């Protein structure tokens, strides 16, 4: 989850979630950054409204309580 937290941290700080920014944050945390994972993350986030995803999380069933369908 390090990569995700880096993205969330940047988003919360009002910064763009770019390859460089994510990499910088991870490096500051002492993480051996894998470029491929950074790229995959940034690509996945391209069309996503992070704010919305965050606010949806607030309403989500809290632990991963699986509704038995």
């Amino acid at each position: 989850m390090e990569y995700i937290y880096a993205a969330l941290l940047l988003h919360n700080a009002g910064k763009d979630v770019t390859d460089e920014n994510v990499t910088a944050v991870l490096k500051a945390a002492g993480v051996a950054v894998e470029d491929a994972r950074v790229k995959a993350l940034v690509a996945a986030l391209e069309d996503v409204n992070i704010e919305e995803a965050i606010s949806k999380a607030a309403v989500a069933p809290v632990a991963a309580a699986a509704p038995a369908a």
Partner: protein
Amino acid sequence: MTLYTQNLPRWKKEEVAEIKRSIEEHTLVGVVDMYGIPASQVQQIRRSLRGTARVKMARNTLIEHALSDLGGSVAALNEHATGQSALIFTNENPFKLFKLLEKTKTKMAAKPGETAPEDIVVPKGPTSFKPGPIVGELQQVGIPAAIEGGKVKIREAKTVVKEGETISKKVADALVKLGIKPMDVGLVLQAAYYRDTIFTPDLLAIDEEAYASNIVLAAQQAFNLSVNAVIPTRLTISAIIGKAVREARNVGVEASIYEKGVIDLIIGRAQQQMLAVALVAADHGFELDEATL
């Protein structure tokens, strides 16, 4: 490839030609077993299949001639054409046909020596019989019959034949008298030739819904894997973010980290703990003020 038919009499040649034409004109040709189906039911089945599928009865030898003449992979249907086989033609896919034929099955009385397709149960309750030797006959095969209010009554439900067991003559007679029809009778699809492949019932019994639900299952598994293993994709990144945020909130609340995103949750928890303690205190004689509740 008319090698097999050149020595046949004319009417047989025509019959073989017709079978071949039917095979070529339909996307699917199947072999069905007609054994033990009364003529009246065959008529009924034909009627219910009309417009969807056509049943063609022919001598096995002629079917064999036709299939061998056509050659190629359809010829393998020969292995499945045994006993009282008939051909069935349709433009539906084999799953549809399989289901269709299942639906045309009807319940019939059991003949002595037949195998029970499922547990045969005589239900509890009154019968239409007046007291007489019938009581003894039923009791003989283990059916708990008794006389009550001038009628023969079955005291409790009884399984007289278990699935897979042979039905004896006495039991068969008793079942007929009680009007119980345990046998599924209808066309049994033995094999279907469709798109260059022979489909056998073991493949066809898996219905489309099972495939559909497996698709859902696979999609769920992929979703779960992507989120749990934190492999972001466009489809799952929102869920992954949600998971990260929830985990962060959980930590925030558990550790009482006073940050904006969690402070309201921490207040909520404090409030609930206060209420819980207040209720316990009230139980022990502490009078609560109205503002508490």
